[in-house]
Structures are given as structure tokens and as C-alpha cells.
């Protein structure tokens, strides 16, 4: 299918081909699903909501509940206030959520709907029942990417709910609380982060938390609001935390800053804990904030190191191309570097200069010979790979076209994964996630070696 890609790279000013990002609202919708009994609400045309639900469903293999303002021609001219008011009425009378999380779209942003004003009007008209909440995030589709939309909705959670808790009142909790903003990751990853932090002795408030929502068990019934998600009570008590750990500069930083502003809880901005070094830093901060690294955790890490040592000969000097969301790509770049591989192409679709400087820092002297690109697309990545081939490709499902065209071993990681399963249940983050990634990468490389080995070099033991 990609025989349309020429090798010569020409500068493109306008056109985007085979994108490596999507728009803000879907990120906001995913984040909102991580609040307990929350109904995400898309203020725009019906298609946006439908597309986002379908796309999320393809990745998570779960039903995704979200409502839409169902804009019409009239709304696009006279504003969407009547639609939002009617929509909120319908939502509260029919679906009875605790929280409605409204996000905007390119359409409602451009016509200039003022969400807080409309929600205020809805309150005055008693459309919002007592004890229920409507929060909102502005998510113009023409700014940033889905990662920014995710970040904006996380920030909205802090804006609407975080409040100061005086130190005197904090002492009553049994265990010390730590807040974690996990980033745009799978429910399995959120579960794993919580496990790690709890193992060091903390009580964890994670927001958003889609574990228990987007990895629900089969029960024989459709549960509109599954058990998981951060509760409003937890969000209101963010102020009890000793710190807020923001995992990923793009997806989580703003939310942690907002908690700091509103509730005076210091922030810790970290990389997404993918691979050994980033997970070590995550654990060190937990320790620094009062957590205890138990022997079990030491053993977990030791097992990962053991596996890295066992497999290093397979990785050494292998060239890798990595693409996806910036927090993922940077953390993967570091992990791949630490395994002895050479990340020669590093690309994200999300805009932002910081991506380049961070990638350069991680790659050090090798940065000069690597292609580092933010706001790129998969057409460009394919061209880069045609010019400098790689041994392994890491990225979301959309990489399969390039992997097929160039016959490259491919490991699916990130979002979205539309053609494989397991990511919702088995983590990519933490030491356990590092083990999983490492196994998938060795599988991919060694399967290829076996496939291509001439008979006399086809070996039983590798």
C-alpha cells in the first residue's frame, strides 16, 4: 500500500500525510473516562463523539460511553448554548452521572461558545442536580494534539476539584498520600503504577484512572459506569498529598502544576516510567517523598537487570525507529539506548520544540547522526527509513504499513493499537512493563533471525 512513498525527501509546507497524531477532543474523552461515574460530553457535531468512541473502542475493546451536543446548522450559526443546555438536561435525567466532563471541538471553539457561562446558566435553571458536577476543558482540535487534549482535561480535574487541605487535617490519614498523574497510558499501566507506589507504603490518588473502566471484566451485563475511576472525593482531597507526580511532560505536567497552585502540593515532573532508568527515577522520587523500597521491589528490578544482561547481545548496535506520542517516544528512546540499540529515527506528530531538545539530551553524542522530528507524520518517517533502514520499528498500529513495506520487525507500543490485544491488561510501564517490552523486542528480532537464517545457521539455542 505504501508504494506511493518516494525515497527523496522534499520539504512540505502544507500537507499532512498519514498522521502520527490526532485531535485534542479524543484525549479529553479518554481522560474523562478515568473519573468515577463520569460521562464525557462532546460539545460539537455528532460525528466527533462517534469517531472518538469508535476509535477508543478499537484500542480498548470496551464499550465507550459519551454524549454529544449533536450540533446542527443552526447551532453553528447561532451558537451551541441551547444544545448544551438540552444536552445536560438529557444527560442528568437519563444517564445519572456524578460528573459530566464537557470538552469542546473545533466547531464550538471557533463559534466561540463560552462553556462556563452556559454551565452557569444551566445551574441557574436547575438543570444540574444537587451534588452533581459539570467540569470542562477547552480542546480546540487545531491546537496541539490528542495528548494536549488529555492534558487539558487532567488539568480541568485539578482546576475544578483540588483545594487546600491544612496540614493539621492531613495527619488523620493512615498512610501518607501521594498523587499521581499517569499520562496517556493504558489501564494496565495505571494499575501497575498504583501497585508500585502502594508497595512503597503510600496511599495513592491517581487521576485520571481508567483501570476498572476500560479493562472491565465480562459479567453478562452492560454496566454504564463500571467500578473504576478517580472519585470526586479523591479529587477534592488532592490537597492531602505530599507531592503530585506528573508522569510525562506533555500529558501530565500542567495538571500537577494546577494541583500545586490550587492545593499547595509540590509537583514532581518525571518522564513516563518506561524502561529501567525512568522507572528508577520514579521509584527514587517515591523514596524521596517517604516511600520504602522493599526487598520485593529490589528483586523485581534485579530480575529486569538479569534479563537485560541475558539478552544484551541481541540488541547491541541494532538500529531502531521510534514514533508515537512524545512522552512515550522519549522514554522508549532512553530505554532502547540503555539496551545498546541505536535510535536512528525518533518522531512524534505532536508539536513542541522541547521534544527535540529532550531527544538530543537522551541521545547525547549520537544525536547528531539521528533524525529527531516533532510535528512529523508517517509519510516522513517512511521516507527516513527508506533512506536509512532500521532493524526494528517501535510505535502504534499505524506503523504496520511501514513495517510491511520495508519488511522490518515491528513491536506495537503506545496508542492506538487497533490490531492486537493485551495492552489493556499487561503493563508497558514500570519494571514489569520493561520486562514485557524487552520480551516483545527479543521475540521480534529473533523471530526475524530464525525466519531469515540459512539452514546451516538455523539454531536451536539462541
Amino acid at each position, binding site marked *: *500500500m505504501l508504494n506511493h512513498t518516494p525515497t527523496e525527501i522534499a520539504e512540505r509546507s502544507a500537507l499532512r500525510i498519514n498522521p502520527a497524531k*490526532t485531535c485534542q477532543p479524543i484525549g479529553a474523552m479518554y481522560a474523562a473516562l478515568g473519573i468515577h461515574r463520569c460521562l464525557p460530553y462532546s460539545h*460539537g457535531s455528532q*460525528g466527533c463523539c462517534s469517531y472518538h468512541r*469508535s476509535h477508543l473502542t478499537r484500542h480498548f475493546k470496551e464499550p465507550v460511553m459519551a454524549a454529544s*451536543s449533536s*450540533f446542527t446548522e443552526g447551532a*453553528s450559526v447561532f451558537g451551541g448554548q441551547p444544545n448544551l443546555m438540552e444536552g445536560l438536561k438529557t444527560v442528568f435525567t437519563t444517564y445519572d452521572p456524578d460528573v459530566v466532563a464537557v470538552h469542546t471541538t473545533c466547531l464550538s471553539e471557533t463559534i466561540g461558545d463560552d462553556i462556563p457561562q452556559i454551565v452557569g446558566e444551566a445551574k441557574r435553571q436547575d438543570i444540574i442536580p444537587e451534588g452533581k458536577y459539570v467540569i470542562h476543558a477547552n480542546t480546540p482540535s487545531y491546537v496541539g494534539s490528542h495528548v494536549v487534549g488529555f492534558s487539558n482535561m487532567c488539568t480541568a480535574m485539578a482546576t475544578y476539584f483540588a483545594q487546600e487541605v491544612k496540614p493539621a487535617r492531613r495527619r488523620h490519614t493512615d498512610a501518607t498520600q501521594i498523587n499521581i498523574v499517569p499520562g496517556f497510558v493504558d489501564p494496565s499501566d495505571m494499575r501497575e503504577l498504583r501497585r508500585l507506589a502502594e508497595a512503597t507504603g503510600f496511599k495513592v490518588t491517581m487521576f485520571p484512572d481508567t483501570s476498572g473502566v476500560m479493562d472491565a471484566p465480562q459479567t453478562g451485563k452492560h454496566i454504564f459506569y463500571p467500578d473504576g475511576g478517580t472519585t470526586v472525593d479523591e479529587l477534592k482531597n488532592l490537597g492531602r498529598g505530599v507531592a503530585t507526580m506528573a508522569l510525562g511532560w506533555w500529558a501530565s505536567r500542567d495538571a500537577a502544576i494546577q494541583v500545586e497552585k490550587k492545593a499547595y502540593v509540590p509537583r514532581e515532573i518525571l518522564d513516563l516510567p518506561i524502561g529501567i532508568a525512568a522507572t528508577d527515577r520514579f521509584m527514587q522520587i517515591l523514596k524521596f517523598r517517604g516511600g520504602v523500597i522493599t526487598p520485593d521491589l529490589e528483586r523485581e528490578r534485579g530480575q529486569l537487570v538479569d534479563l537485560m544482561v541475558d539478552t544484551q547481545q541481541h540488541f547491541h548496535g541494532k538500529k531502531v525507529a521510534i514514533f508515537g506520542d512524545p512522552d512515550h517516544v522519549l522514554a522508549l528512546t532512553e530505554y532502547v539506548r540503555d539496551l545498546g540499540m541505536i535510535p536512528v529515527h525518533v518522531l512524534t506528530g505532536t508539536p513542541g520544540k522541547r521534544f527535540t531538545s529532550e531527544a538530543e539530551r537522551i541521545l547525547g553524542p549520537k544525536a547528531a547522526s539521528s533524525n529527531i522530528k516533532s510535528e512529523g507524520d508517517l509519510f516522513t518517517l517512511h521516507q527516513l527509513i527508506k533512506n536509512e533502514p532500521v532493524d526494528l520499528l517501535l510505535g502504534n498500529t*499505524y506503523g504496520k504499513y511501514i513495517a510491511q513495506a520495508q519488511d522490518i520487525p515491528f513491536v506495537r507500543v503506545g496508542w492506538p493499537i487497533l490490531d492486537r490485544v493485551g495492552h489493556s491488561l499487561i503493563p508497558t510501564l514500570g519494571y514489569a512493563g520493561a520486562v514485557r517490552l524487552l520480551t516483545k523486542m527479543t521475540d521480534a528480532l529473533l523471530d526475524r533471525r530464525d525466519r531469515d537464517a540459512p539452514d546451516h545457521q538455523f539454531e536451536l539455542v539462541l
Partner: protein
Amino acid sequence: MTEVLAARARQVIRSGDGKAGIDCEKQSVAGSVSQRACTFCGSRVVLYPIADAVHLVHGPIGCAVYTWDIRGALSSGPELHRLSFSTDLRERHVVFGGERQLEDSLNELIERHHPAAAFVYATCIVGVIGDDVSAICRVVSAKYGIPVIPVQSEGFAGSKKQGYDAACEALMTLIGTGDTAGVGKHTVNLLGDFNLAGEIWIITEYLRRMGVEVVANLTGDGRVADIQRAHGAALNLVQCSGSTTKLAMQMQAKYGIPFKKVSYFGIDDMAGALYAVAEHFKDPEMLERTRALVAEEITEILPVVEECRRDLEGKRAAIYVGGAFKAISLVKALRLLGMTTVLAGSQTGTPEDYEYLTDLCDAGTVIVDDSNPAELSAFLSEGKADLFIGGVKERPLAYKLGVAFCDHNHERKLPLEGFIGMANFAREVRASVCSPVWQFAPRHQPAIKEV
């Protein structure tokens, strides 16, 4: 009985309860969790299978991403349609206009890929910032000498249906611009077939065996040059009636081409479609060939159907699909497998569709228009469905309820059209309904009323 949104009460009826007709073709209730999509979606699904054209989405990136290669509309040649092209509008374009971005993108695309035509899809935002898409298209078309066609598919214009209409408008600008020399007497165009899993090739082969030639595919495995000479065909066969009936009507008005609404799903409807063609051409030999073909094909697949029927007899099915025509064919096909239908619904059916559906179904069957997950799962459990036939958003709902599933929408991987399609359908339904996994999966557990 299952509760429905008060405002939707008239969009749900039960077959045989003597009530007045269903309410449909309505705007969705704001705030409902509708399964419906938008105008852009409708246009995109109809036009995108034209494989030698570039399809440029003019708007922010999302609209291009969510429609990137999500349907297996196969091509026997070029695969330009499977790439995702977008103008990726940013904030500065929203403020200062995106016309320049559009023109530059078109120039680059056409110079690199030398397509036979270009389609430019207008998204919500284009309608609001006021880019003159038509003017840009005219300029670029004049520059390169290929059709560059604006598709007025702003999402807010309505549901998928309005998008179908916009797509038909776009197609009408192509049709009639080609040379019809050499187009024979026994010729048809195939409308409303998108060649999912290679289905249109099956139909084309049946027609070839009957002695009927296909002029243009609209639009599965479609080619611009074929579409340009589509007005030379003697007959239009309209499959997905919701999407292309309007096009057939326009072609009838403008070029005098009669059309027949057909369905290629299930033995009855497939045979009916072929006989309708043979009868139209009033050629006794063709009719004879058709009889032979139908007999041969049915003989071939009947053992498969019989075998599957043994396992499926008495099972209950629920249907919720995009267009109502498909629901109608499915009810018949399921009957052939010995299954009853407890729920039949669609996103965009017309009053006539629903009337036909209501008459066709057994008494008590629930008929719904523009449904939502809460309602669907309640009807599924109420009807004790063993199988759900739907699309991407319906699949996990079915599985959570412990119900087997068959994708009859764009994620189907096996051809379901034609006689062989009936055999595939039977096998797929049986594979899911009779899977051993259900012994571990609770089915239709009582939903606890949420507090």
C-alpha cells in the same frame, strides 16, 4: 419493559402491535449517547473507495485520522485511497483562513501522485471560517486538467444521510464527462457497493456469467474514468439504498437510466437481484443463464447453510446496523439459518424501510431508529438474544452481555455478499454463536438498577 428516552419514545415500535409508524429521520436528542455519525462521515464512506483519486480532508487532523483506512474497501489496482491526506488546519488557519493551505496541499498531492481526480472534503470548521473551497478547486482543476471536486460535507449539516447526498452531488459532477463509445447494450453500474472484503468482484463475476458488463463501480474498487462514462450504462443497480438512491434518481432524471434497488445479502435477495437484471434486459438466453447460475451457486452453498442451521435453529438474533436495507436482508438471511430476530434497528432508516421491516418481522420484534448503548443492551437482554449483528461500537456491548457477534459493517473481513457470502455469513455466525468461550461467560445477567 425497557425504558427509552422520553423524547425517543416514538422512535421505538414493536412489530405487530398495531401502533402508527415509527418516527425517524430525526435529529438525535442532544445529550444522548447516539451511535450515529456526521455528514462528513457519510460523504467519506461513499467516496473513499475510488482508488485512483486523492481524497484530501480539509480541516483539523482528527477527521482524517478517524477515517484512515478503517474500511477494507479493496482495490484491484492503485491504492491511493488508503493513504490519509489532510490539510491539518492549525490555529493560524482558523484565524486567517485555510485556502492557501488547501491550494498548496492540492498542488503537492497532484504533482506527486498524478491522480485521476481529487476530492476535497469540507469539515465543520471550513463551513464556519468560510474558506471558498469551490473556488480553490476550480483553480487547481484548471491548472492540472483533472477534476477537483469539492464535497460539501460539513459535519454539522446533519447525520450520515446528508453526507451521502453531498457525495452523490460530487459524483454527479463526474458522471457524464467521459466518452461512452463502446458501452454495450447489456450494461449496468453498481451503486452503493464499496467492495468490502472484495464483495463487488463476486457480483461482477455473476453478472459476467449472465452476459452483463459493469461500466462503473460506485464506488467500490472504483475508477474515475469509469465513473465519468457511467451515464452510458443501461441500468443502475442500487445496493446500499440509503447512500446512493438519490444518485440513481438523479441519473434517471438526467440521463434516463432506470434503476433497481437490490440487495446482495442472503440467497433470496441475491437471486432476486440477478433475476431483476435478467428480466430488465428481456433476454431469454440471459434469463436461462441466470437460472443456471443461481441453481449452481445455491447447490454449492446449501450444504454449508444446512450444516450451520443444525447448530443455529431456534437461536435469537438482534440487528443494529447503519442502513435499514441491510437489516431487511439480514432478517431474511437469519430465517434461512433457522434464527428469529428479536431486535431490528438502524441509524438512518426511512419510514418506508421501517414499514417494510415491521411487516417482515415476527410479532413482538422491537424496531428501533437511532438507538443508544443503554437501550440496545436492554433490548438485547429482554429478547434473550444469542447473537448481535452490528458495527464497531456494538461489538463490545454484545460481548459484555455474553452474546455472540457478527460485524456486518465496515470491519467485516470476509465477503458477506453473494451466494458465497451467505455461506460465509452462516459460518461466521455459527463460529461465534457456538464458540466454547460462552460456557465461561455469564449471559444476560440482571442489570442492577444504578443508584
